[in-house]
């Protein structure tokens, strides 16, 4: 009988599962989701923007420990020290194919399919010593619902030229890309490489961060200060950290500068007469867009701060976690605890703390 449940079978749930497997057998964990392939959704999005390389570095993987990272396995496979040297210089970025192969290998050997239950969970209801998930009882539940949907600006929703970057698409001769994050930057280069003339529409200039957020927010060094912020300040910080960004480097800058000199790339303030408009505007934000989370908040009166669920530092829901049960949140809804919650490192952070809570539980 499973004692622990993971709601969501995407990469955040999958990463949590790998950590849980250090303490539990596959039969003791239930993973609820709609697709047994943990990379199914992510693969489609990466394919849509023709992503060939991960933004994350060697530790952007689903294993419970940061070592051995993907640089290590890449070095072993290529019989070369180059990936390790690149990793030491923070220049190693696994290819998308390497990452997907890593997920596939882990899926095969971890017993994931044995734990997977093909069901969309509609309601989480707190009961004595645990939670009811559509009738099944679990003492400890991790919610990893993923992004609630693609975000298209209101004014563009009825425009027939519009396609979201994460939906499969080609490139017209003239393309407007809305947004300024990694997906947008990738699309600028994709469209230029396809011979298109590109207009970038952005509300603000992008940050140039190697990772989704500045590096200090991936460890306690930056997190301690962040987690001590008052709610209003934390909201402001989260907004600042949600700014569009893509990595620095000539790989991005040179093609754009060349295209600008050739008159094929320019920045404008609003959508113009391009034949195609690609919205690289990310995802819908906030728990209200996720039916499961919205219902959970409404039914249990959980504390929220604007778009965010208020969570403990270990990403547990304070009103529904105690010495006998745990409800924690992974992935993007866990940003209150960990600003880069929608990264693999963020998923691992939550997984480690979720397991720690379970192991400290009196009735485990």
């Amino acid at each position: 009988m499973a004692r622990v449940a993971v709601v969501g079978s995407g990469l955040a749930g999958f990463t949590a599962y790998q950590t849980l497997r250090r303490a539990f057998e596959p039969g003791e964990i239930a993973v609820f989701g709609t697709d047994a392939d943990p990379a199914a959704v992510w693969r489609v999005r990466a394919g849509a923007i023709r992503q060939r390389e991960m933004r994350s570095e060697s530790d952007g993987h689903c294993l419970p420990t940061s070592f051995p990272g993907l640089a290590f396995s890449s070095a072993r496979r290529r019989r070369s020290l180059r990936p390790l040297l690149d990793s030491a210089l923070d220049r190693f970025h696994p290819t998308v194919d390497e990452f997907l192969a890593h997920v596939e290998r882990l899926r095969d050997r971890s017993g994931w399919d044995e734990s997977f239950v093909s069901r969309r969970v509609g309601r989480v209801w707190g009961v004595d010593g645990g939670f009811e998930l559509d009738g099944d009882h679990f003492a400890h539940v991790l919610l990893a619902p993923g992004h609630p949907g693609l975000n298209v600006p209101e004014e563009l929703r009825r425009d027939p030229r519009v396609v979201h970057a994460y939906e499969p698409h080609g490139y017209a001769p003239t393309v407007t890309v809305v947004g300024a994050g990694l997906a947008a930057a990738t699309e600028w280069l994709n469209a230029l490489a396809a011979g298109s003339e590109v207009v970038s529409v952005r509300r603000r200039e992008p940050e140039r961060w190697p990772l989704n957020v500045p590096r200090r927010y991936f460890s306690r060094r930056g997190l301690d200060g962040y987690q001590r912020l008052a709610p209003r300040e934390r909201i402001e910080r989260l907004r600042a950290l949600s700014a569009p960004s893509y990595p620095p480097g000539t790989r991005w800058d040179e093609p754009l500068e060349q295209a600008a000199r050739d008159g094929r790339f320019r920045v404008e303030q609003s959508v113009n007469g391009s034949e195609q408009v690609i919205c690289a505007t990310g995802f819908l934000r906030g728990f209200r867009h996720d039916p499961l989370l919205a219902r959970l908040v409404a039914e249990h009166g959980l504390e929220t701060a604007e778009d965010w669920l208020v969570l403990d530092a270990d990403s547990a829901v304070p009103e529904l976690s105690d010495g006998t049960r745990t409800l924690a949140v992974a992935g993007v809804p866990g940003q209150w605890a960990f600003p880069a919650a929608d990264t693999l490192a963020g998923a691992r952070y939550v997984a480690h703390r979720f397991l720690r809570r379970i192991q400290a539980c009196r009735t485990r």
Partner: protein
Amino acid sequence: MSYTLRGRLESRVAALLPVLLGACVLAAALHRWWPVELVALMAAVGLALDLEVWHRLLPYQPAWAAIPLGAVELGVLLGIVYGLGLHASLGPALALFGAGWLASVLLSQAGFPLLRLGYAEDGGELGRVGGVAAAGLVLALAGSAATYALRLPPVVHLAAGVHQGPLVITRREVLQGAPGAVVRGGIVVAHDDVQIRNVTVVGGMNGITVDGVRGTVIDGVTVEGAKLDGIHVRLSGVVIRNCTVDMLGNRMGQGIDISFNMELGMSMVEGCTILGGQEGITTHSSATDIMGNRVSRTTGEAISVDEMSMGMASHNTIRDALGVALYCNDRSMCMFDHNTVVGTRPDAASGIRTRRGFGILASFQSEASVWRNTLAANPVASGTATGATLETTSQPGW
């Protein structure tokens, strides 16, 4: 990795623990304390830099930074090691530091992340393991310090007054003389790690004999009236400092004679005053540094590096020597620098050409390098004989 201060310190301490254990084993094997002292110093330097510099300077520390940080720490460490005179051999000391650095890199990049699930996101903090490691390091260092203290040689205080010798020392000890303590008839050192301090020795076949032992330190002694040598060292490693040897009237004995200890590492004669005798300070088949001594009125050679010795004579002052002042002989390799040689007298009575009053003489296939010596009022400033070479260079000839 973005280390927290605690994480940085815990990682440092935990990574040093296996190195410290290795150093303890090495210290036991070598019967020397420098490996433990070196690791203790590595810990102190590393922790001080962590607290005062690295944590403030590096909010994020990429893996490659281990190389420049390690180089800085090595530089600081070597400066302190040589500043404090820890007598660590450079090669083994570098090897120990390298082992510590490598252990630290491997543990922080691979070992600790495997050991502790949240190592990276906890900023290098190790939880209970960190506390245990810190306790382990403190215990190991405290244990080493206690062992060191327990193994310190006993101090034998020699009261003022005359003590009839010869005094034969057959155990590790520090013989500490009170002002006015005199041993008549000589002292014989017959055990390793003996120190003789502030004692006056009068008479005896040799004033002080050191034979077949290691780690002897002779500091602040006065020797007078020895029949043969003032301080006679055979097959032994010694450090002789701040001594006074009066050999006036003894035409055949040597002030200090250190011979046949080439295999025992460097010996040292420093800050001594030698008066009279055939040779003031002489070495045979020995590697001895002769520094900052004052030698005068010798009848053979004032300072002699002889019989395949390798040695440096530096900053010595020689006056009124008969025949030869600085002598490099018999296939020895010598470096004579910054010495002052004044008033060497020709040994006309001997009728030997090489005793015409040389300030510096290299003889019989020896190789002498000289640099910035002050030679005044010597009949012959410098010269060579029987296939020896003498060259002016700032670099030693070996």
